């Protein structure tokens, strides 16, 4: 066979016609994505959230106005927000946030490591799946605070007790995300990968894992939510002296009967949770949009 082939040598008129038909069909069948401006899109997703916050604050204020509880027990936004602003200016607050976030990141990182390892093992080994597959789901449904008595017995009142519970809270979700993702890889993609010559680890790396990524990211997102809850419970229960953290500060505010401060810290904890969740949300949407899994 010749190395170079001139495709147009025969019947060039009809070939040209068919080329034009092809180009016409392509143009007709794909629409140009006319994206709205970035700012406009950001605003359209931002304003409902802002409105929701405003409504929540209004409801809170209404409850305060109703004098359901005494003013000093349930302070209103007008007392809490100045307190919040004052607190945010202190170095102690940022030390507390720093300690808490450090634990959160380390605990979550360890959960990702353990969750992925366990998930991968369960996916690969059939016996393991039968043995621990349903146990992982069981662990996931168990409130992690239940682990604290045991954690305190095992590790005493220290960092490791908190870490233990955070990992037990988050790792099952992450493992499950990976397992579900791999389970639901469309068989045709695996066939396609095999036909292209991917086997074993190559197949895993170039086909199965990328196909499982959306589910894995969803698992990470859920894992974070569990990690954050476990961490807050841990910081409230396992107060570690001379190490300020959000949980400890929250507890102090209650002991000192400083209720505006109490609610201010609650808001901080809520905001941290929402912000990190939003980061996962962005990653989740990116991953799914890439694959055409988002309905616009």
């Amino acid at each position, binding site marked *: *066979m*010749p*190395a*170079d*082939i*001139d*495709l*147009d040598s025969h*019947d060039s008129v*009809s*070939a040209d016609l*068919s*080329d034009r*038909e*092809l*180009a016409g*069909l*392509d143009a007709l*069948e*794909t629409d140009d*994505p006319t994206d709205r401006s970035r700012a406009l899109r950001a605003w359209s997703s931002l304003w409902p959230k802002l409105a929701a916050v405003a409504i929540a604050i209004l409801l809170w204020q209404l409850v305060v106005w109703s004098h359901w509880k005494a003013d000093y027990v349930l302070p209103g936004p007008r007392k809490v927000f100045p307190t919040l602003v004052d607190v945010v200016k202190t170095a102690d607050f940022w030390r507390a946030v720093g300690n808490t976030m450090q634990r959160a990141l380390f605990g979550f990182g360890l959960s990702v490591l353990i969750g992925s390892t366990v998930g991968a093992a369960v996916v690969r080994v059939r016996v393991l799946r039968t043995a621990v597959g349903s146990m992982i789901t069981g662990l996931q449904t168990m409130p992690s605070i239940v682990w604290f008595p045991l954690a305190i017995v095992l590790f005493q009142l220290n960092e490791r007790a908190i870490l233990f519970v955070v990992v037990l809270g988050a790792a099952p979700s992450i493992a499950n995300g990976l397992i579900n993702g791999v389970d639901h890889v469309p068989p*045709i*993609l695996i*066939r*396609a*990968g*095999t*036909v*292209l*010559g*991917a086997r074993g680890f*190559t197949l895993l790396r*170039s*086909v199965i894992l*990328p*196909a499982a*990524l959306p589910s894995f990211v969803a698992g990470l997102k859920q894992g974070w939510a569990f990690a954050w809850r476990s961490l807050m419970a841990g910081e409230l229960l396992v107060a570690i002296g001379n190490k300020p953290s959000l949980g400890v500060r929250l507890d102090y505010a209650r002991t000192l009967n400083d209720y505006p401060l109490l609610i201010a810290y609650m808001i901080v904890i809520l905001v941290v949770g929402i912000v990190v969740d939003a980061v996962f949300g962005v990653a989740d949407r990116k991953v799914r949009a*890439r*694959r*055409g*899994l988002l309905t616009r």
Partner: protein
Amino acid sequence: MTITDVRNDVDATTTGPAIHIAGLSRVFGSRAKPVRALEGFSLDVAPGEFACLVGASGCGKTTLLNIVAGLDKASSGTVDVGGRKVALMFQEGALFPWLTARGNIELALKLRGLKDRRARSARADELLELVQLADAGDRRPHELSGGMRQRVSLARAFAQDAEILLMDEPFGALDAMTRDVLHDELERLWKATGVTILFVTHNVREAARLADRIVLLASRPGRVIAEFPVSVTRPRRIESPEVGSLAGSITERLRAEVRRHAR
């Protein structure tokens, strides 16, 4: 347009069929309740031939392609492709949705063993050009039309530098207009590359439009019941009377086969 055929000439001098299938059987299910997908299936496809398999549901087409592609094992019988590389193209295209059109092609090149990144990129450009999608390389599968996806899939199959191309109802999900144009495309690529094609379809007219030879299959178990050489001169049009009358007589035969299964 000029394309370069970089296929390593394995044994262009060898005579004999590109695909030799003899007495092939494939049984699924338990021993007590066996499902015979293929039984005593024999077929030779000559190098460079365009053969179409036509059959009703249950004729074991997919099983056959899987076995020839090495995705499945025969229960008995032989399949010999003489060491030729085999590519398989699916009805749904089966593109990887997380990769762009170019990424899909480059992955195929990488898995084939093309190590150099720049060589991969250059070859991907050529292949995109080959299926007339040079401008769509950076789009992801969900941003392409069905016909475009199938062309990317075709380019990906060509990226494997296979000498045998198996096609499992590749245009089955497309509208008639797009299918027509893709028939022209496929014929052009087949002529240009000299690849051996084994093409499975439900559509008898499609087979008559494309094939050198049409092989009619019986269902449950799948086996060859008739062969029709197609002597209509190329280029053909799917609406031409010659294609139509050939398709008509094959359809008649196929219907008789389907009636046999009525209970």
